[in-house]
């Protein structure tokens, strides 16, 4: 009896939301402006439930059940094919997304989804080297991250794709190498580097760079830019051997029963003035050319790459099953070394 009363109480508490359609959006942190949601709600009368995540794995763990309740999420480009294969994504209705024409040419037909059937590119980024200006000579190449002068004051990202990627690029191989011989060579490089590495850290390294604990780290450009905004003595390098590129894209989940509203939200995010406001506040790298034009200010090079630099970048690709398993094993061996 008591139990039943309690559950009824909870059901009541959960049910007391106002009328009007509701859209549930799950996005990376720091990816919208403070008034983005409020303006959309005012315009459409819909209510938006907005929550944030910090990694693709975290997002996938939440939506993988197919009954999570989320409508729109933002996987990184190499997660789109796996999610589609798992039957999680709904096919996009391009008629409802006219603003897609404002995207950069590169994102009109990206290699991971050439006809934009499943995903709309939203923000892009890359990883490179963030370092302290007192480091001389400044690191220019991934190979510099194997230099003994950084011993104990160096971190790499805690991600097999990134660490193996840096080693592969250092060896002149492809970022998305699948051959066992190539991956083994990269693994040997990573193990050789491990004694110099203080830790494998993701976003946590940002304030350690600002405080000066760490002198050089492998880091995403947008996170690096946040550190540089706080500490002007930090510099960012796009390694000469090449560097990984990625794009976070908006998708509609198959489980969503508000697909039309979901499309409307995605198209709203792609409006030039909305995109410009987001970039102004969050300091991220938008995929939307028109938004940059509206913004009208010169972005720092970490957020807006020159064509010659961009040409060195390589897009992360989804790994076939066998290669993924091999990479995971190599990564486990690196960690156990």
């Amino acid at each position: 009896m008591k139990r039943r009363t309690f559950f009824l109480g909870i059901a009541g508490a959960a049910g007391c939301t106002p009328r009007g359609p509701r859209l549930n959006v799950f996005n990376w942190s720091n990816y919208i402006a403070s008034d983005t949601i409020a303006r959309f709600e005012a315009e459409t009368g819909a209510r938006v439930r907005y929550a944030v995540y910090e990694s693709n794995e975290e997002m996938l763990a939440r939506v993988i059940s197919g009954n999570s309740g989320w409508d729109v999420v933002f996987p990184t480009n190499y997660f789109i094919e796996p999610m589609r294969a798992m039957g999680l994504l709904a096919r996009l209705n391009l008629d409802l997304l006219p603003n897609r024409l404002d995207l950069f040419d590169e994102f009109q037909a990206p290699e991971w989804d050439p006809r934009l059937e499943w995903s709309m590119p939203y923000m892009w980024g890359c990883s490179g080297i963030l370092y302290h200006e007192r480091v001389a000579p400044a690191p220019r190449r991934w190979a510099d991250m194997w230099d003994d002068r950084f011993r104990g004051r160096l971190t790499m990202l805690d991600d097999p794709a990134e660490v193996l990627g840096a080693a592969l690029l250092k060896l002149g191989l492809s970022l998305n190498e699948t051959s066992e011989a190539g991956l083994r060579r990269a693994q040997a490089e990573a193990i050789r580097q491990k004694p110099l590495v203080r830790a494998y850290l993701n976003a946590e390294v940002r304030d350690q760079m600002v405080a000066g604990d760490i002198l050089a780290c492998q880091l995403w450009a947008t996170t690096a830019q946040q550190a540089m905004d706080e500490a002007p003595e930090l510099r960012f390098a796009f390694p000469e051997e090449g560097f990984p590129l990625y794009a976070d894209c908006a998708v509609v989940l198959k489980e969503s029963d508000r697909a039309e509203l979901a499309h409307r939200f995605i198209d709203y995010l792609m409006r030039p003035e909305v995109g410009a406001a987001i970039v102004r506040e969050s300091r991220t790298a938008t995929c939307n050319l028109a938004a940059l034009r509206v913004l009208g200010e010169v972005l720092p090079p970490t957020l807006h790459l020159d064509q010659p630099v961009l040409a060195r970048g390589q897009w992360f690709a989804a790994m076939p099953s066998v290669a993924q398993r091999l990479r995971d094993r190599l990564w486990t061996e690196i960690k156990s070394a």
Partner: protein
Amino acid sequence: MNRVRAWCLAPTAGVLATLFLIPLAILLGYALLTRGAYGGAFPPWTFENWQRLADPLYLGILGRSVAVALVSTAICLVLGFPLALFIARAGRRKHLYLYLVILPFWTSFLVRTYAWMFLLRDTGLINEALLALGLIEEPLPLLYNYGAVILGLVYGYLPFMVLPLYATLERLDPALLEAAADLGARPWQTLRRVVAPLSMPGIRAGSLLVFIPCLGAYLTPDLLGGGKTILVGTLIQNQFTNARDWPFGAALSLGVMAVVMALLMGLIRRQDEGVL
């Protein structure tokens, strides 16, 4: 007699069956399936995932995890036993002390871990203080090693040791201690010969409650260990996220459970009565 007992056991039995045994059976099914191209688990049925468990790489990781968990449990016992004894004898104030043990643990585990990162960093409070006192010239590398991981685990799970210890020590008849003293036993002898044996149920329960989460922990090794080493919790987590190898992850988890179950059985058989 039997009817009352049956009614007492029924709710737990129901919960265990629906929310534990059935889900576990589903997991066992996963462990016998083949990995899908991008995750999930599909036919055909196979034992391959179980064969991979025998790999020295994975056995080594398991051994290291057991060692870390054992050391953490031992430290928790050394720190927790005197504390529990003190609280049990604190009279009117004992509830307050008990709450003082629990209080730090109402903040998120992650926040507590971050607090230690705060203290142990190169520019953290401990290093800054030692530098200011002139005791060291270079910051000590306190963070990102096994010591930091064990410290974090001890800090994280100490109340799991203190609470059951307190529950048994509190029941201990003070007259027994007086009797021992009257018969000429020194305090240390009393502790070893009287208090410790009588509090064995609490020691066993506490050690179990600490050992198991330490064995499966993955946030602490990643945050305080700086991801430089891999323990079995992280390995399992990786299978369900990065590696997207659910069947192997399922086999791995069931394998770990089998190992711990074996330990548990040994513990129960050696003692006349089990923890449960």
